[in-house]
């Protein structure tokens, strides 16, 4: 706990120093960060932004302008986030806000980005709604950038990774979809239903469960009864519970898909190692050289903050960099110019090449998914470590079977 207090103090002192230093230089670029300090995914966001800002400032800033970061804790509440956004814009005069990994929060902030004409980038919320809203009412919502993959793209990523690894290596032929019953998983599940068969996996069962489920026994039993070779998940509110119970009940089926909590580095400890063998898709993993920037970032981050970044940390770090580029390109932090510049982003960051879909595409302002652009990594928890299995060019290990899983006999 003293660590934590110390860190806060440090951050505060740094912030003040930066503030004093930059007062003499040219007008600073002020970036507001609104995130969830108490959750692992959210806590990385301000840290990653601060890290990127420090690096940029150390190299002389953006055209001599220093980046100044102001952070706000939204306590996972949309109401708190809106208040923080108002404060950031009208009181602290930030020029851009990087905010949250929770879709509810980002959707609540969107009208405010439009109203206060301040660009907003989310480094971790997945809902399709975000970019669809931009598409539907571009004139109003163009201020919002979906600096992460949509649910739709995430499903595509899962299918792609499954097709190339699991169908091949595990000889899997069928799959069961297991998602929490929430708005963000609706498009995800729809995309799963569409792309899994294309990848050669027949969908034999589709379970949606209440997000406040505690006991997963009925769900696993139901899935087992359908005899799939694979469980494809779409979970974020839950993660620890289904994983631990999957392991405790020795469910003999491998699990892959989107598991928000599994991407975090503390997942092993939180599940007491129950996550051994769990597969998951993530935008990046520590020690996986997606680009030449990935490993240096992970290492610096871990050294400075005492733990690996969450997925939102990677996205937030990159968001800071492409924002800086956009400011440079636009030559201004004036919102409309900045948006124009952001739309033209083509930046290779820690997670791959980042470009945004245009105004005429369904997922306007969302990061483009695809080979050569941004893709994802299929990771697996093996003895306390996240090992990359796919894509082959960045893999750091080979797939192992989870303890209770026997390979499909051909």
């Amino acid at each position: 706990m003293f660590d934590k207090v110390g860190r806060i103090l440090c951050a505060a002192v740094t912030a003040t120093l930066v503030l004093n230093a930059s007062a003499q230089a040219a007008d600073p670029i002020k970036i507001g960060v609104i995130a969830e300090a108490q959750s692992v995914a959210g806590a990385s966001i301000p840290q990653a932004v601060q890290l990127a800002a420090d690096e940029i400032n150390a190299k002389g800033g953006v055209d001599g302008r220093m980046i100044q970061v102001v952070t706000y804790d939204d306590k996972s509440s949309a109401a708190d986030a809106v208040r923080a956004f108002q404060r950031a814009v009208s009181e602290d005069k930030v020029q851009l806000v990087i905010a949250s990994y929770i879709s509810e929060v980002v959707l609540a902030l969107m009208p405010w980005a439009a109203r206060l004409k301040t660009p907003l980038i989310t480094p971790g919320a997945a809902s399709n709604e975000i970019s669809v809203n931009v598409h539907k009412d571009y004139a109003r919502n163009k201020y919002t950038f979906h600096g992460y993959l949509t649910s739709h793209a995430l499903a595509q990523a899962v299918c792609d990774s499954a097709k190339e690894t699991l169908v091949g290596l595990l000889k899997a032929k069928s799959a069961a979809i297991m998602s929490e019953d929430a708005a963000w998983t609706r498009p995800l599940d729809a995309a799963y239903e569409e792309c899994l068969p294309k990848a050669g996996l027949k969908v034999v069962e589709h379970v949606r469960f209440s997000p406040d489920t505690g006991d997963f026994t009925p769900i696993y039993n139901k899935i087992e009864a359908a005899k799939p070779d694979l469980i494809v998940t779409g979970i974020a509110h839950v993660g620890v519970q289904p994983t631990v119970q999957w392991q405790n009940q020795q469910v003999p089926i491998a699990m892959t898909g989107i598991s928000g909590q599994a991407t975090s580095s503390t997942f092993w400890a939180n599940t007491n190692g129950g996550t051994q063998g769990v597969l998951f898709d993530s935008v990046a993993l520590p020690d996986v050289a997606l680009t030449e920037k990935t490993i240096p970032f992970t290492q610096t981050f871990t050294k400075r903050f005492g733990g690996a970044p969450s997925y939102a940390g990677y996205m937030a770090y990159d968001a800071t960099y492409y924002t800086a580029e956009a400011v440079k390109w636009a030559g201004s932090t004036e919102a409309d110019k900045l948006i124009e510049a952001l739309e033209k982003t083509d930046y290779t960051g820690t997670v791959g090449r980042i470009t945004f879909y245009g105004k005429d595409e369904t997922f306007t302002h969302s990061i483009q998914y695809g080979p050569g652009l941004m893709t994802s990594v299929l990771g697996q928890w093996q003895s306390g470590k996240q090992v990359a299995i796919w894509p082959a060019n960045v893999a750091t290990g080979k797939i192992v079977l989870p303890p209770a899983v026997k390979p499909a006999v051909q």
Partner: protein
Amino acid sequence: MIGLQILVDGFAISALYALGAMGFTLIFGVSGVLNLSHGALMVTAAVAAWAASAQYGFGSYAGAAIGVVCGLLGALVTYFAVVAPIERSKAIPRAEKEIFILTGTLLWGIMIQQLVAYFYTDNPKTVLPLIEGVVEFAGVRTPRNEWFTALVCWVVIALLWAFVNKARAGKVLLAASMNPRGVTLLGHDMGRIYIAVWAIYGLLAGIAGVLLGMFLGVSSYSVGPLTASAFSIVVLGGLGSVTGSLIAAYVVGYLETATAYLVSPAYRVIPALLLLVAVMYLRPQGFLGRR
């Protein structure tokens, strides 16, 4: 087959619900207090057990013990710092003690929840189970830990039952829950009885919390739902009736499990909530409650 599965799966979860609710109803029975920081105390116990074993390297047994002790201490602090001052306060009219205790324990629960989230993040955690592996039973595969959970719950419930019904000191508690004035006239100080009951409550909540942490996992977000579920079960069973809570826990547990199997896991809790509303309309005193 599915019937057996429901039977087996519902058993452990219901036992856990019962254990969680039992202390809650005991407190109400003896002192008329509805402790809305109940969920927070359970989470405290679970997180303490998790932290002790996963973070500070105590063994899983020592961790579990530390968790239970934390539950006990938490309950006693709740009594002395929140409940007793409100009960003693002269500034609060007697008719309004109830709402003040409800609000006070609610706030106290939020404080505990925030502290847990602050020091250990709001990510869910699971306590390392004391027993691992699975057993096959008539074609239904169940983790040993689930049986262990059910077993511990029932052992604790049986011990509580034996204590209250057989031991002389326990009988006094039982008597106090029926008629506090009666035990006062027999020479027992209610003040001491309250402390004893809160201590027993703390132990029960602690054990239930640690088991919950092993079986299903907890996070600071579990605080509200845990309180609500204990509250529902206790009211359903009849406030203050320990046996009623036991029955209600099984009704709710099986209703949820059966819904998850037979309808959809997405609607898991809805029938139980509807049942609760229906019971409140038709038999407000609950299954075994008296008015």
